[in-house]
């Protein structure tokens, strides 16, 4: 009897699913963000969320759950009901660096059903304009002359910015002193004020200071020059092998979310990210939109996580 019942119920569930995804969404969608308001993951969620509301007529609520190295939001996102009503906007750090840093993790990549990549913010290696360093070669020569005596600021321990620093140091056989700050803004201020000679910053926070003549960009950290500032050379073009990193964001659903819902979300988000006004909004902050499929995102995360784990281990980056 029980077996019959189970069969009937699961049959009903199977039958019900396509209906569900056709009518989805029927209630507000929540996007969990592991960061405080103002960061790129937050702003990306709000831009995309506003457009989803326009398209589907359902409210999209952005929930900032900052802290705990992203554990709180990412853990909640992984364990949320897989119905497409709780999504997570993560950054590359949450899925490719944090897992390499901590032994015990409240979530893993397999807990999520990837929807797609969203935005890509280029980063730059910048120097204070009053320092003598004009190119990456100057800087590396300086670092070789006095190993470990050149300070490089970053927005924090375990940030993608720090990874770029350690990656560069490993691949060029140099040593720097890493100075972590509480976020990008204080690091940019310290560099502009001349407290430190170098910092690795989001290109959007370095841009205005470069225009004002306080900072000088030595290199962008991606493999390709930034679309917004093609005049800045890459690290790779200046002899730093392999280093390729930027701060990108990605949208996730919990594992087990019906494929139809994930696909519907992916299609709509990709459509939104291709809209000229959305692109323009992101571009205002020096950020590109990078729509992708779930499979592409999955491959990118796996590749990046593998790459960065090696650097974390070799450079002995540790949260404690």
């Amino acid at each position, binding site marked *: 009897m029980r077996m019959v019942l189970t069969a009937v119920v699961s049959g009903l569930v199977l039958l019900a699913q396509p209906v569900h995804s056709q009518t989805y969404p029927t209630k507000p969608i929540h996007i969990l963000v592991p960061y*405080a*308001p*103002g960061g790129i993951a*937050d*702003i990306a969620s*709000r*831009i995309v*969320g*506003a457009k989803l509301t326009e398209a589907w007529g359902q409210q999209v609520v*952005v*929930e*900032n*759950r*900052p*802290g*705990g*190295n992203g*554990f*709180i939001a990412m*853990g909640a996102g992984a364990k949320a009901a897989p119905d497409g009503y709780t999504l997570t906007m993560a950054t590359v750090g949450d899925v490719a660096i944090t897992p390499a840093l901590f032994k015990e993790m*409240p979530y893993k990549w397999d807990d999520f059903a990837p929807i797609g990549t969203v935005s890509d913010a280029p980063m730059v290696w910048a120097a204070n304009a009053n320092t003598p360093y004009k190119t990456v070669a100057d800087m590396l020569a300086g670092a070789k002359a006095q190993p470990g*005596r050149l*300070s490089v600021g970053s927005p*924090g*321990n*375990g940030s993608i910015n720090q990874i770029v620093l350690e990656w560069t140091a490993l691949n060029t056989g140099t040593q720097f*002193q890493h*100075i*972590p*700050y*509480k*976020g990008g*803004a*204080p690091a*940019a*201020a*310290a560099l*502009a*004020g*001349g*407290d*430190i000679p170098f910092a690795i910053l989001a290109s*959007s*926070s370095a*841009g*205005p*200071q470069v*225009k*004002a003549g306080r900072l000088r960009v030595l290199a962008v950290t991606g493999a390709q020059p930034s679309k917004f500032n093609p005049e800045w050379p890459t690290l790779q073009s200046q002899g730093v092998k392999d280093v390729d990193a930027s701060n990108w964001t990605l949208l996730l659903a919990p594992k087990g979310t019906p494929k139809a819902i994930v696909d519907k979300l992916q299609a709509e988000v990709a459509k939104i990210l291709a809209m000229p006004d959305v692109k*323009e*909004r992101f*571009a*205002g*902050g*020096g950020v590109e939109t990078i729509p992708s499929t779930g499979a592409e995102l999955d491959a990118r995360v796996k590749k990046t996580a593998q790459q960065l784990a090696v650097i974390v281990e070799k450079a002995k980056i*540790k*949260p*404690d």
Partner: protein
Amino acid sequence: METLGNLAFGLGVALSWQNLIYCFVGCFLGTLVGVLPGIGPVATVAMLLPFTFGLGPAPALIMLAGIYYGAQYGGSTTAILVNIPGESSSVVTTLDGHQMARRGRAGPALGIAAIGSFIAGCIATLVVAFFAPPLAELALKFGPAEYFSLMVFGLIAAVVLARGSVIKAIAMVCFGILLGLVGTDVNSGTIRFGFGQPELTDGIGFVALAMAFFGITDVVANLEHKDRTDVYGDRLGRVLPSWEDMRVSFWSIMRGTALGSILGILPGGGALLASFAAYMFEKKIAKPPRTFGEGDIRGVAAPESANNAGAQTSFIPMLTLGIPSNPTMALMIGALMIQGIAPGPQVMTERPELFWGLVASMWIGNLMLLVLNLPLIGLWVQLLAVPYRLLYPAIFVFCCIGVFTVDAKIFDIYMLASLSAVAYVLFKLDCEPAPLILGFILGPMMEEQMRRAMMINFGDVTIFLSRPISACFLIAAVAMMLLIAIPSLRAKREVAMQE
């Protein structure tokens, strides 16, 4: 002269119908979230961000700025009425503001807070208009060594701030520092006192701590007296400050404004230090009769003016350098970027309507806030007529909601409960909470800056003395320590404190 022309141009921008409406909306929302503890300006600005996409950059910025400084006006309301500081900068306001409320002078306290904020806002707006670029340069001169020395000075001053025993004040500052150290260390990434709880990796929330030590403890202490039915005196007294009140506090407002304008430009902690500094300064130099700690109106006027002046001048680093001095500012920069404007030094020259429009709107906004807040005082004071047996459960609920809404974590409510127990014990031991709060906020910043200064200078301690601004703060700190330590002076201090 050029500045006056620019200001007139800015007024033209700010006085357009559209901008006036958004300025009002911002100020109104700001007052509202300022009154509700927990829901701060950060969350409000974040929620309104998508709404600003459709506006031009000027109205968007004017509205978001209104929320920010409007919240400074609103924050004093709960501090005075029910002893709950909603924002860190209104902690000091509770000291004398709530005492005034208990003596039936809630109206004058709220009134002087609004009037002081208005005067401070107007003057600080002029400071922004005339001196923004040079002040921004000064802010950039503040490196880790300067911050460290400023914090040392602030912490030693916290001991002077305390009313009772010096030993207890020092102990409370140290306890505050220890509580502040809970969480992830910025320099090494190590999690301290975390006990494996992910919720503790970001430390103890300020709102929970302030509510435990002020709001909840106050209620419990009131409930100890079974026979006392009304906490707030039988007369509610006048609603607005008298001319005498205005005369007494006028120079306090001026001094608070000056301190707030200067300290406000320092990113991180500037506005908070300003309100503490203004209070201590008043306490030291005020002419008798002095009743600080028992409802002296100057103890409300000075810090409230300082925190509002600081709120206005904290726009300077953002507008002239593109560097946000707090999370709300970071969001405003986000809003501007979405509009295609990279905030930075060039905004002033390339988009003068934005800079001068905002500066002029601040003045208009302050006027709106005064007009909005003064009539509300009558309403707030009526609230105190509610019998205490009905009021105190409401305060409890209010505290819990406030703590919960910060990060939507149940854990924070447990935190509030346990901190309240600790706070009550300390209250029974006559240990004052104000030095603890200051230690909680300044201690970790002091540590972070000190270690950063040492790292950048490769362990060279002389950096703190070889940089002139830093050396000045340290000398002032030593002077203040002597003031406490020398017994003859100490006797004097006790006399001063008892008044």
